[in-house]
């Protein structure tokens, strides 16, 4: 008894020990590396390539932050987290920022003591079924066996959706996306559900993607974004404005190709402030004046990041949809750099 409590206290104390550290920016600078929490592997969003280098949409954000803070987009230690471990990893200080398809919800923001710093992908939960089942709507799924990642908002949305439509289902809880794929393909479950972007990424990795359809119903709002520990607002500002810089850069037409030219000074004052040729925005953040320029230069603006990793010309083939700039009818809207 005594020993068990002792070990438990030891574990818990170890977990909690890192949480007290406040100045994340100083820690990151002293370490010379950004610890960034990502998925264990979701092609397009975050997955190691053949050479073991992490690449993807979420990975790009990590690299942009590292470029802004440390001046080196490669100075990132990617920490793979599951739906289960991600919050503990962030709360304990094992990672500095979590960029892992994490849905911004009230209870995570308020009760779990995290700060969400914006939305880098507007998503919603969908269903994927084999074409051979002949299902055309999620409401026809009465009695189906559904594969689902545990520890995510999808689990709760699923329960709500089936309850609201008064139909039954059999949940098969699965830890990671990688484990879900073979189960779905072998027919251990009829349906696979997760965020629509995740479904597209998963389907792209199948041998015969055309044999599977994503049903039209989107049953939830899933604003995915980066988050940090509550309480270190300076660090939160850096992550928030790095994301905003990528979004604003697309709106202002700044790309990784023309950024050197634009950094020489333009006649658009907002671009000048963003790139540090005018004003002192970088210093206000506790960084130098070129912070945003380095971030954009290393990974490109939001649009470039999107097209390169998950856009229509990639195997994942997501259209911009809600994730277009507000000027193009989407929801992306960066506050002004002023």
């Amino acid at each position, binding site marked *: 008894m005594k020993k068990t409590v002792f070990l438990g206290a030891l574990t818990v104390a170890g977990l909690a020990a890192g949480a*007290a550290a406040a100045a994340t920016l100083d820690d990151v600078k002293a370490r010379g590396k950004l610890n960034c929490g990502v998925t264990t592997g979701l092609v397009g969003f975050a997955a190691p390539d053949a050479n073991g280098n992490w690449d993807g949409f979420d990975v790009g954000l990590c690299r942009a932050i590292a470029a802004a803070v440390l001046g080196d987009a490669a100075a990132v230690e990617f920490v793979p987290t599951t739906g289960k471990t991600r919050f503990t990893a962030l709360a304990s200080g094992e990672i500095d920022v979590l960029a892992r398809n994490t849905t911004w919800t009230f209870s995570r923001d308020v009760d779990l003591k995290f700060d969400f710093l914006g939305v880098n992908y507007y998503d919603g939960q969908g269903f994927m079924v084999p074409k051979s089942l002949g299902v055309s709507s999620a409401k026809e799924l009465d009695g189906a066996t559904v594969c689902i990642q545990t520890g995510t908002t999808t689990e709760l949305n699923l329960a709500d959706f089936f309850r609201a439509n008064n139909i039954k289902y059999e949940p098969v809880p699965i830890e990671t996306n990688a484990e879900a794929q073979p189960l779905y393909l072998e027919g251990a479950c009829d349906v696979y559900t997760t965020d629509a972007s995740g479904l597209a990424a998963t389907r792209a990795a199948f041998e015969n993607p055309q044999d599977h359809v994503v049903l039209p119903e989107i049953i939830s709002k899933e604003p995915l974004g980066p988050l940090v520990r509550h309480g270190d607002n300076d660090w939160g500002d850096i992550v928030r404005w790095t994301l905003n810089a990528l979004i604003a850069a697309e709106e202002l037409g700044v790309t990784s190709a023309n950024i050197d030219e634009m950094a020489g000074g333009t006649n658009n004052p907002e671009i000048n402030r963003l790139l540090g040729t005018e004003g002192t925005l970088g210093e206000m953040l506790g960084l130098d004046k070129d912070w945003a320029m380095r971030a954009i230069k290393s990974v490109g603006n939001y649009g470039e990041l999107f097209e390169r990793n998950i856009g229509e010309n990639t195997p994942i083939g997501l259209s911009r949809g809600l994730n277009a700039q507000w000027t193009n009818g989407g929801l992306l809207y960066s506050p002004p750099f002023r």
Partner: protein
Amino acid sequence: MATYSDPPAESFKLSQLINDTRYRSYTFQVIALIGILLLVGYLISNLINNLQAAGLNISYQFLGEPAGYDINQRLIEYDSQSTHFTAAIVGVLNTLLVAVLGCAMATVIGVVVGVLRLSRNWLIRTLMSVYVEIFRNVPVLIWILIIMAVFTAVLPQPRDFRGANATASMVGDMFAFTGRGFYAPMPYFETGFAQGAVGWAVVLVVLLGSWLAARAVGRWAARNQEATGLRPTTWHITAGLWLVPLAVVLYVQGLAWEYPALKGFNFQGGIFARASLIALWFALSIYTAAFIAENVRAGILAISKGQTEAAASLGLRPNRIMNLVILPQALRVIIPPLISQYLNLTKNSSLAIAVGYMDITGTLGGITLNQTGRAIECVLLLMLFYLTISLAISAVMNVYNNAVKLKER
């Protein structure tokens, strides 16, 4: 005449705490105890300070809030609007279910394999050694995953039963073996005075009555044997006592069977044993059985050869020697390590999430923990649960051990 006087009363000196062997061990025990308490106190205060610094507190209020998620296998009433506490209970029952099933099957396999390892038949002996060595030396998580993978890959899925040119079919229209689990017909009462659980309780009472009557017959036969030396033939009476009342009650109740049938995406109706339960049960059983087999073998080898020879000289046949002479004595050696194997099996059942079986680690320690973010609270509860279960198993098995151990008077 000698005079006696009391030895001079020694006054207690502080140095005696170290130098005097009467006190020395107490001194060190007290010092060690204080050290441990200080360390535990430091860890706890560190935890509380850090939680405060992070703005968190320890609260179990979440247990009363709606869980919001569904669980596939539930032995009690549960839906997504039930509380986290109910979800935890569902998980507890699932853990206990697989633990009880696993312990029972592991014991049966373990005893059989343990005895067969000592067989004089070379082939059987070698096969059993190979089984024990393979299963004992590969981690149980790997076995769970392998068995589940084989399960889903080898057995047909419900979709294979569908359509005109189905590749799989049900066994006698009664049983369906699919990669999602096994379906079997379920008995239920159509007419009769008591339905559902009450009906089964009635059947149970009837069976209990039969058992008591059969025991009385057995005692009567034994008395007759003591008195006359001849044991009357009782098997037809016993069989009648068991079968006739059962048949009558089942007829009166109107026993009927509900057959599983493919409806929509899955088979509906009948009894459903999920693939996750079967795979986990089977994996835990055969893994633990390999250890139990070694315990049984050790127990049997601990009985001196003279016992076998003495029994043989009385004219007992080999299997009766094993059942009546060797195993009862071997139990004394087997039971203590068997307890720890039961504990291991129960604790290993926490790997259930690997196959999507919702045990307590999957509900309270998995989904509830994730959805509420109350990691410390959930982990403490989990520790408390496993501790309680393990101690309870130990207590029960110790009672049994005391019953079979050598009584020294």
